[in-house]
């Protein structure tokens, strides 16, 4: 556990040494801010539903960009070898990096707290869905980070890692919106696989254990696969 914390600290601070962190955060804020406020005043409603609704799509692009370097870069420059010959297990490494990515995701969301605050001045904001929404975004960020981490563990090329991660995250987001051509008997099963479906429940303010379980299992599967892919490599 001690080792996980050391790796987490190092990875998290490395994000903020390079300019990538600031670029990613700026792009995220710019895009979400733009989409949110262009429609906000037309709707004339004091809620953040549109802000949260677009999170799955935006995060499925942003998170793989955040996680793509975590293993790929190490394998590319070879520091992976120095890391794994230190007294750490591959699980320590995976967890340390995962929590760093998750913490980065939280740091990225921190400035968006300005939205609910400014909206609450404009109208009567219900904080239930807001708290639910942020919980959902963090859970979603965790699931996508685990997937991105797995994608990064597959290849030493960061661009390939990004594309694989994005493809998986994007499919999970879109799967429940693509079901109109399926027979209705399969509908329930496939919509249950979709990240968007579970996210919508949470962002409405309904915190259901099934939805939490979904995101936690996706994270778990991603981390397990990443750990497995590291072990198989050697």
């Amino acid at each position, binding site marked *: 556990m*001690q*080792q996980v914390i*050391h*790796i987490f*600290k*190092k990875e998290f601070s*490395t994000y903020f*040494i*390079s300019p990538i962190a600031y670029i990613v955060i700026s792009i995220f804020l710019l895009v979400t801010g733009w989409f949110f406020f262009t429609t906000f005043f037309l709707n004339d409603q004091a809620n953040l539903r549109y802000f949260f609704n677009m999170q799955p799509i935006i995060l499925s692009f942003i998170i793989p960009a955040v996680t793509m370097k975590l293993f790929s870069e190490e394998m590319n*420059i*070879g*520091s*992976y*070898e*120095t890391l*794994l*010959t*230190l*007294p*750490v*297990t591959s699980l320590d490494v995976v967890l340390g990096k995962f929590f760093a990515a998750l913490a980065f995701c939280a740091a990225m969301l921190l400035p968006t707290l300005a939205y609910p605050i400014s909206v609450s001045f404009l109208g009567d904001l219900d904080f239930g869905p807001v708290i639910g929404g942020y919980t959902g975004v963090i859970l979603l960020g965790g699931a996508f980070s685990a997937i991105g981490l797995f994608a990064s563990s597959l290849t030493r090329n960061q661009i390939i890692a990004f594309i694989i991660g994005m493809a998986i995250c994007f499919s999970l987001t879109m799967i429940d919106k693509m079901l109109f051509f399926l027979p209705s008997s399969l509908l329930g099963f496939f919509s249950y696989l979709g990240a968007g479906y579970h996210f919508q429940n949470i962002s409405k303010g309904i915190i259901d254990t099934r939805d939490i379980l979904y995101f936690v299992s996706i994270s778990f599967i991603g981390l397990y696969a990443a750990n497995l892919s590291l072990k198989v490599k*050697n």
Partner: protein
Amino acid sequence: MIHVENLTKYYNTLCAVDQINFDIHKGEILGLLGPNGAGKTTTLRMLTGFLKPTTGSVRVKNFSIDQNALEIKKILGYLPESAPLYHDMLAFDYLNYIASIRGIDGSKKLERIRELSDICGLSSIMHQPIGELSKGYKQRVGLAHAMMNDPEILVLDEPTSGLDPNQIVEIREIIRKIGKEKTVILSTHILSEAEATCDRVVIINKGKIVADDSTETLKQSAGGQAVVNLSLENAGYDIVEKEITDVEGVTGVTKIDETNGILKVKIFCKNDNDCRGKIYNRIKRTDWVIMEFYQEAQSLENIFRELTKEN
């Protein structure tokens, strides 16, 4: 200390290391020699637990690499080839991070980093990003990284590559100093380095051990031939060859060069008796002028070439 048994590694169908066996004792400096692609790095990677052997076992003290990898990693310091470190971290931050992972805490941490910075000569670059350092400095940071926990076993993959001659001498001195109490395994393709630092040499070729002995014994056992170089003025090759071949113990003479009236020859002698005196006595009788006269040290290089040549 380290016991390697039937260690084999296949990369798909390519056999990188083929059934090697050796023991390394405490306080020994072992040099792993071999041409490019002989399996040196692969062997070291298996010793450090980075790669899993296809078959065979590595035991360090009483730990097996499959079951107690973590215990082994704790007592082992490893510097991989060309010191791959995080480019965007400062040298100090990096060493600080390694110290934390190695479980060195609080006040001891700074003390240890200072100590290593003195040993490896890092004080001037402590606050520069590793990516901007020259290769030599990177190598030194890597060495500091490997020595962080004062390991019982130090594994160095080509530790002096990229260093300037002064630094090479310094690093060799460090290695020898460490080797007095600790076990050091280093791989190199620079033979003079192995000769200068190692107590024992293992030569690998195509994944197999072709020699495993102390440098002294290796030199004695090899070839059994000594080479004397001779440069003469005022002499013709034909007559020199005739006269010298006649000397007892000389097995052959070859011409190397003849320019500006100076004739250079190589004389091959039996190794067991020094025939320089006899050659000199023979030359004394003639009116040749000796410009150069020395015996080539029988170097590891010849042995190495002999053992690893392509068939």
